[in-house]
């Protein structure tokens, strides 16, 4: 079973690919929305791609208030 570090690494890889950001420029403690410039429609698209990639369901309300990659990775990990 993947650990939290694995999930965080996979998440950063996915975010880099999805939003065309350099992988080296992304770190767990960064604000995702500010770093990637995500609006509400892109946030939904990202949510769908995360669910499809990790094979989990991520209820929207669990992600409210989550702003950095580490927090998001923790939510994903809790559902894996």
């Amino acid at each position: 079973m993947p650990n939290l570090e694995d999930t965080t690494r996979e998440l950063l890889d996915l975010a880099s690919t999805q939003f065309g950001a350099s992988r080296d420029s992304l770190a767990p403690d960064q604000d995702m929305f500010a770093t990637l410039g995500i609006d509400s429609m892109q946030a939904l698209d990202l949510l769908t791609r995360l669910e499809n990639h990790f094979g989990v369901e991520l209820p929207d309300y669990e992600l409210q208030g989550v702003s950095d990659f580490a927090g998001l990775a923790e939510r994903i990990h809790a559902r894996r």
Partner: protein
Amino acid sequence: MRWTRDDGVVELVLDDAPANEIGLRSLAALERFVDEIGDARAVVVHSTVPAGFSAGADLRELYRESEARAPAERTAGVRAYLMRIHAVFRRLDDLPVPTVAALHGVVFGGGLELALCCDVRIADPTARFAFPELRLGLIPGFGGVPRLKRDVSNALVRDLLLTGRSINANKALQAGLVTQLAAEGRAIDAARAAAAQAAKFDPATMAAAKRFIKPSVDAELAREIELFLELFDRPVVQEALARFVSDSGPMPYLP
């Protein structure tokens, strides 16, 4: 919104950027569309807007219209609007020909209610479904709950409505909210193929089969209108609408 006709199949194309919000202008267009379906053998409904099928009711318009009226006049105006939208959605639901929806991206609120009028729903992997109306102090008002209950389990209806969460296409397929998945960007191709196939069947048999197979939810639709208006007529709704129109966060559909 526009429509095209090719070999007996009529395509309703939702093309109002940014997200096909359903307001007075699209309602009038929908009414014209239903009037003009004529002798079509099948109908396909899809969106060419990248954000998705439809984000639902135009809440900014609803807020503007509501703010401009006194409370009594406001409720009367919403009732008149709901009666019109229910009438046109019922005509879509009851068409004697097969209707196929191709779904991608956001399929929320009134957009999902439009999709639920269609006989066959096909999604691509980007599709996302939600009924977030409770965040506004409301229930879905365009026939959503009766038509959702017709097709999926009451447990899922409660999960979606009572939490306001959204679900992806795989979950929607498991639940029976959609019945086919297509590759990303290919739901329209699958919908056209399904419509072309269904259009080959004898029209009288098709009409009879639809009447026999598709349960009527008219009684519940009437109750929905009354409950919606009862809920709408409260300050908490105006306050929630005001919050929504000023929210620029990543999840404005949740409180």
